[in-house]
């Protein structure tokens, strides 16, 4: 079956892979924002993860080790943000922007001797006969491991936030940090851990770009993916399931745009390119309409500075 000269099964399978970097970064940022912290440094953490993952993969030859290194490297970078905003009570917006600029510069410096090298391939998981099932096989059972890691992370975050005690604590800290503090929860410690989780996720997302999608390190290669991840969290109104939807929408539109061109369609691609951003703007407008703030699930303490004595 072909639609406008495009095979939808192939398109869906490719968009799952193409959306993985922004999906990982967005689900990490979702957890961070759920605890009431706005970290605008996603782009910086992604690019740092991309370079850390690439360096370790080139040195060890193992993309798996590269992804672990990317997660650790970006979590360490996010610790700078955590210390500045949670311990020294710096402004979160300014610190997050600084983290992005710092990450871009730092990664360029670290990656200088790795420009132009080619990373080893990262084979798809072998599901044996499952991959041969029509329709379902190519869509679900023919990806590299990170696609599944990203999907399990989304499911895990959804389940933890919804059903577990830990999820309740995270949400309590994000909704009202004073109340959570009064109940005896360590607000600052919980937030620092959440920020590091977000950093690790963003780092793996970045490494997916350098290790799977492009197979090389290029300065500034995230090209705004971190900002898209931030937009997805707002678009998803802080719900894990909708983050998945948002990531596939953003990733899918980009891919659809290229596929439509390849199929020779004369549909103006600019409309497709701008559509996810239009939807995000619409969601933001709805959110800022005040009364609907609760309906959109923005955490109550998002972006507010917490100090135990105040």
């Amino acid at each position, binding site marked *: 079956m072909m639609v406008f000269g495009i095979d939808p099964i192939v398109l869906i399978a490719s968009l799952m892979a193409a959306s993985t970097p922004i999906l990982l970064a967005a689900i990490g940022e979702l957890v961070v924002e759920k605890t009431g912290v706005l970290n605008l440094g996603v782009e910086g953490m992604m690019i740092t993860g991309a370079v850390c993952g690439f360096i370790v993969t080139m040195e060890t030859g193992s993309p798996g080790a590269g992804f672990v290194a990317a997660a650790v490297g970006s979590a360490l970078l996010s610790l700078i943000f955590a210390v500045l905003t949670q311990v020294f009570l710096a402004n979160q917006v300014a610190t997050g922007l600084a983290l992005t600029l710092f990450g871009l510069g730092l990664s360029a410096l670290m990656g200088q001797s790795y420009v*132009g090298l080619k990373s080893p391939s990262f084979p798809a998981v072998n599901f044996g006969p499952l991959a041969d099932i029509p329709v379902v096989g190519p869509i679900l059972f023919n990806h590299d491991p990170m696609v599944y890691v990203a999907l399990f992370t989304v499911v895990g975050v959804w389940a933890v936030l919804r059903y577990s005690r830990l999820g309740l604590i995270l949400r309590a800290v994000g909704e009202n940090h004073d109340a959570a503090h009064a109940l005896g929860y360590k607000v600052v410690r919980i937030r620092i851990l959440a920020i590091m989780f977000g950093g690790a996720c963003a780092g793996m997302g970045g490494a997916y770009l350098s290790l799977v999608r492009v197979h090389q390190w290029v300065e500034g290669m995230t090209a705004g993916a971190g900002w898209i991840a931030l937009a997805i969290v707002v678009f998803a109104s802080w719900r894990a399931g909708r983050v998945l939807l948002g990531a596939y929408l953003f990733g899918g539109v980009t*891919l659809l745009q*290229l596929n439509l061109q*390849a199929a*020779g369609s004369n549909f103006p691609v600019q409309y497709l390119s701008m559509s996810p951003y239009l939807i995000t703007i619409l969601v933001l407008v709805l959110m800022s309409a005040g009364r609907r703030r609760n309906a959109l699930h923005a955490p109550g303490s998002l972006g507010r500075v917490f100090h135990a004595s105040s």
Partner: protein
Amino acid sequence: MKLKSLLLGGAVALGLATTAQAEDPTKVGFVFVGPIGDGGWTYEHNEGRLAVEEHFGDKVETVFQESVPEGADAERVLTQMALGGADLIFTTSFGYMDPTINVAAKFPDVKFEHATGYKRADNVSTYSARFYEGRAIQGHIAGKMTESNIIGYIASYPIPEVIRGINSAYIHAKKVNPDVEFKIIWAFTWFDPAKEADAAKALIDQGADVILQHTDSTAPQAAAEEAGGVITFGQASDMGEYAPMPRVSSIIDNWAPYYIARTAAVIDGTWESVDTWDGISTGMVGIGEISDAVPADVKAEALALKDAIAAGEYHPFTGPLKKADGSDWLAEGEVADDGTLLGMSFYVEGIDAEIPQ
């Protein structure tokens, strides 16, 4: 990247300040659109810069800035270089055309050389290479090698140079394989590895088993290698690390002789504003080794085509040719003039697509 540009700028300024009181070597500046490690376009320009350094030794000092966006930023970088005492500045991307002209008007004593553009001034030369000659050879190999009869083309911006390449490749693919079809993706970037990789994958998903690229990174090569059974051609640089498969040949830009000649002209005081457009015959366009993945007879034909172009016996745009809208362009045996080629904004007959505006 901003931070790095700042630091680089500072370093350049410092370097110039300290060497100013020395014996005053000729300073040659280079402005690059991508990083020097892109493995393609900018890499080869930087090789040319290194050749200039090696050839002149202490008599010449070079400065460069990489990843300079096309537009207003380029004007700032150029102004900074000119103020820093550069005697000759090479601007190596089409989008630097207006910034080069603007800055050149403010610095009449500095010589400028703009690659691939068409605007000149008393102190601005233009230079380019006849890449379409190399595209003809690629088209020939592509037409012979494709089994799906679908050839994917990753185009950058809809400018004459890129359209010329598409037409040249198409004409020669069609000549050896009448069933061939071109699928073209406009990436609207010279260098964005993620987007180039996605574009290559989209073309492969659409059945293409040959990928031609007019973008600068090796990402499409990596995507083709991953997919398997797809052939590619190195763009601007040999990209030999992907040989023998997927990369079966390449177009290599060799700027070094030109850069050395022009720098020598500045030193001698004989520099004049000129328009240079060289091809395979002078070596400005090189054809990378055709790998063993190509059958011997196809390889021999491709090399014969190369020799015929180099000797001036054959022009890739020789009639009869029609435009895509069906109107006549070249009569039997007629050869396209450079003016038409330089302003080319139409597809030849058979390419079923529209050029984005």
